[in-house]
């Protein structure tokens, strides 16, 4: 029987190297998060003196139409993300096609993503104007409208207008991301399918789509998180109106905490957002892990 191998001393140096990163993470992520949770149990406001109020902020939040706001946020997100994915996928297929001018088309798709969001949204705001806007004017010329129509003045129209603007801004990134994934699909698969007489749609359905599915999954989850958190588009176009028709969780939180200075109530809303986004993130990482274990994601 041989003697046990001598115990290797613990090498602390790598842990020491991690300390600065850990400290920064604690300061810029953990501490504000913990502070937000603490604030959510207080009546923090402009008054420098605050009191512990238990779950009162959460009770108030749910008593004041918050469930309605949560529902609206999810509808907004689902509409927007679905459209971005569908249009982005279609655009990626077109940009991947071997046609003349493809490089130029790939460049031209990017401006909505490159233009500063605020400027893009202001332009859309003018386009939605009934008296001077392009959309209403064009619709009147085509005989679709009998007179000026204010897209941001009516609940459903305003809601759809914010979705359209968000889709316009978010689609280029989806398209370019999916295009990159498509370019990673081995060409010999297409050649073999083409030799076997597979149609263009069949090749897309049975080769392209399955192989870019991990990219679609990743982009849909990331897009869902970004869309859920989207603030500037709605705020610039409607400030959450008319009659709260475009008030999502982020808008509601901003109005409560920043416009009305009810920091405690605002913090309770922020905690709810963190919970929802954590669920998304958990889903994202679980999916990535599953795909990685199958060897789809390298």
């Amino acid at each position, binding site marked *: 029987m041989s003697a046990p191998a001598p115990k290797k001393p613990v090498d602390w140096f790598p842990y020491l190297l991690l300390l600065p990163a850990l400290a920064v993470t604690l300061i810029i992520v953990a501490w504000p998060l913990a502070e937000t949770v603490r604030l959510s149990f207080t009546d923090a406001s*402009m*008054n420098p003196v605050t009191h512990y109020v238990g779950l009162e902020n959460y009770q108030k939040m749910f008593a004041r139409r918050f469930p309605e706001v949560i529902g609206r946020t999810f509808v907004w997100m689902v509409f927007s993300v679905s459209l971005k994915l569908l249009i982005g996928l279609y655009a990626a297929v077109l940009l991947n096609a071997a046609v003349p001018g493809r490089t130029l088309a790939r460049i031209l798709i990017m401006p909505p993503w490159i233009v500063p969001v605020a400027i893009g949204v202001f332009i859309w705001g003018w386009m939605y104007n009934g008296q001077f806007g392009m959309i209403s004017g064009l619709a009147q010329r085509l005989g679709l409208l009998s007179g000026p129509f204010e897209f941001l*003045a009516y609940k459903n129209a305003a809601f759809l207008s914010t979705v359209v603007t968000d889709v316009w801004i978010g689609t280029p990134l989806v398209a370019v991301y999916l295009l990159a994934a498509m370019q990673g699909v081995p060409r010999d698969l297409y050649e073999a399918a083409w030799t076997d007489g597979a149609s263009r749609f069949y090749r897309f359905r049975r080769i392209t789509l399955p192989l870019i599915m991990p990219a679609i999954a990743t982009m849909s989850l990331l897009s869902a998180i970004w869309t859920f958190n989207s603030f500037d588009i709605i705020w610039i176009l409607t400030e959450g*109106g*008319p009659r709260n028709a475009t008030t999502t969780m982020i808008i509601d939180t901003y109005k409560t905490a*920043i416009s*009305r200075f009810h920091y405690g109530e605002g913090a309770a809303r922020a905690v709810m957002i963190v919970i929802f986004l954590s669920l998304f993130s958990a889903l994202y990482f679980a999916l990535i892990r599953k795909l990685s274990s199958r060897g789809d994601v390298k």
Partner: protein
Amino acid sequence: MKKMTTLLGAALLASTAATSAFGAETLHMIMCGDDTTPGIPVQQGLISDWEKQNPDFKVEVEFVPWGQCQEKSMTLAAAGNPAALSYMGSRTLKQLAKNGLIIPMDLTDEEKASYAAPILGTVTWDGKIWGLPRAFSTKALFYNKKLFKEAGLDPEKGPQTFDELLADAKVITEKTDAAGYAMAGASFDNSMHQFLNLVYSNGGQVIDADGNIDFDSANNVQTMELVKNLVPYAEPGPVAYNRGKLETLMGEEKAAMMIDGHWLYDRVPADVDMGVVPVPAGPMGKHSSLLITDSLAVFKGSGQEDAAMSLAKFLTSPDHQMAYDIAEGYTPIRGGQKVDELLAKDPSWKPFIDIIPAGGPEPFVTDYVSMQDSINEALQGVILGEVDPKEAIETAAENLEDAQ
């Protein structure tokens, strides 16, 4: 060695002198808007004069866009790092005072007497004055004479009552391509302001003399009925319009009537021929106007409260304030010879100045954003046809209790 000592001594002396020359304490002042308006050079000149009298201070003016300005001042104060002096909408003063973030203004009886009582009312709460009025506006009804003529109406006779306003708006809508009345309904403070002009002109109010919410009244239901009746004769989709956008419609002659401040003359092309009359009176009231002031407020905790108070008083002293008002085109805050001269030079100011004694202040509440949201939501509900005027007023009155 001696040379070295002399050189070092000279350097020390020079640095001490430089320190005293450049050692003036910075006084942080926040102004809303940008530095391009005509009153700003006037104000800057006055600040320079004040600095000469107070060499220990150097005033650093920070211009913050309107949309973020008040929030910035309030957030800095709540975070314990306030500006010494800030330009604030007077409606925020109660909230700031109640939370102990600003200090009351120390005015002599003579200084108080220099203001008209309704103007001082816009900055007074709990018997104390919490800001010095810096900008003041009253409103009147502008009407487009060309469109009146086109519709067969007398262009020299603007509407005087709610009924006349409605009748004229109807005729103009039916007989011209323009909207009869420019109505604001966006989620914006000035949509509420537009409505409150009509509320006061029908004898209504938001808060009574004792500080209680008094919004649910027959007067206000009647005023909301007027809004409902005007909707068919307003521009399409009033909920998308705030006052600024309506001014564009007036400039383009796409709307015939609008309640606005005197500045509208400067915002429409010179060839748009406009008449102006007091805000039409409702059946239960008489001509009135919402009186809105913005103020200079001194924040607690900057360590420069006395200097900030001195600067605020200097800038708003009668002559200095008048020079600023005239440069900016604001309704003059104080009366006197300069106002008489202004009226003689430009009689269009008359309806805006004459209405001051009959005007009502912007309501003073603890949570003005909540008040704004409550009233705007009622307006939007009626404009969109989702609630009737009575229900809208009742709901708003309930919500206003939270703002109080």
